[in-house]
């Protein structure tokens, strides 16, 4: 039976799509047959982050409306085996996502893959609710900043009350915290909420800390999931995150200040 994992946050711009792309790519690299679905109908971007925007022919809504079948809409990733992308429609609105339609497509995918990653839109409207409704597990992406933490808490409330698992009284959706755009030196100097502060407020297990890194922008410019930039700190952090999700017990990196050389300390940078 496949696992459905929603990547959600409430707030926009915190790194949901970046996380979805790298998480799904990481799962596929480790041999899991994986599909990543963009639920942001009308504002799709997963295709750009994954670098397959010019290969989109049919989309999620076409499949829901039986205008295309799943195989026509799925885009096979060219870099990593076992990975497919299901893009969102750019021309419809989010009302096109019906509960029955989404359920039918997830049901079809469950027959053929092991992991289904649902990239949620921001907000708590239909698109976001549909992305989380069928989830077995949730990656809650949070930035160490007040509005993001508050919105994450709100999303945790919705996962606990409005998911299918909640409605049917099944075991609750398993929650994981992904703390993104973290700057250890700023947290250390008391300018930024620390990992422990956020954990204390949200009270869910930490899956990974992604450091603020210029590589994230560079890789989105290039359309390459940052997890494939193995030498970068953000790439390594996502790689660890995937391993932890699959049960490896790895210590958290990038949560403390990196030692800098004398030149860097004097002249800044890095």
């Amino acid at each position, binding site marked *: 039976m496949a696992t459905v994992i929603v990547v959600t946050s409430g707030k926009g711009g915190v790194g949901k799509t970046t996380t979805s792309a790298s998480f799904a790519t990481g799962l596929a690299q480790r041999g899991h047959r994986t599909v990543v679905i963009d639920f942001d109908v009308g504002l799709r971007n997963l295709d750009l982050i994954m670098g397959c925007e010019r290969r989109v022919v049919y989309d999620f809504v076409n499949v829901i409306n039986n205008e295309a079948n799943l195989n026509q809409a799925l885009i096979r990733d060219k870099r990593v085996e076992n990975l497919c992308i299901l893009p969102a429609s750019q021309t419809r609105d989010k009302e096109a996502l019906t509960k029955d339609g989404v359920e039918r497509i997830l049901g079809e995918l469950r027959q053929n893959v092991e992991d289904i990653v649902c990239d949620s839109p921001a907000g708590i409207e239909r698109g976001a609710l549909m992305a989380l409704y069928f989830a077995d597990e949730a990656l809650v992406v949070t930035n160490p*900043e*007040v509005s993001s*933490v*508050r919105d994450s*808490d*709100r999303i945790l*409330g919705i996962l606990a*009350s409005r998911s299918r698992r909640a409605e049917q009284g099944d075991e609750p959706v398993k929650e994981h915290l992904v703390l993104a755009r973290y700057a250890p*030196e700023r*947290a250390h*100097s*008391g*300018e*930024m*909420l*620390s990992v422990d*502060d956020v954990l*204390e*407020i949200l009270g869910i297990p930490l899956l990974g800390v992604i450091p603020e890194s210029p590589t994230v922008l560079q890789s989105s410019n290039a359309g390459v999931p940052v997890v494939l930039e193995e030498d970068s700190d953000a790439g390594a952090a996502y790689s660890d995150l995937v391993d932890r999700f699959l049960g490896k017990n790895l210590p958290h990196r990038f949560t403390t200040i990196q030692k800098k050389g004398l030149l860097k*300390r*004097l*002249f*800044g*940078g890095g």
Partner: protein
Amino acid sequence: MGLFDYFRAPPSKSAAVAKERLQIIVAHERGGRRSSPDYLPTLKKELLDVVRKYVPIDQSQVKVHLDREGGYEILELNITLPDEEQRQGPR
């Protein structure tokens, strides 16, 4: 940090303020979310009817409170019985 940063005033510890504000607002919003189940008013009324068979009490003397602690829910019931004199009425 560059050379010139050493001459700047140290940054304020605003993270502590952020944490405190978040703890308050999040606790407040969770409170509203975890509202009591809808059977509570009926439960309260039926309990009142049962107790009334034996002791004359009114609505305000029954307090029903639902608490959540970890994985448990605690239903707290508090009935204030009237004084002995009141119960027996004037002689």
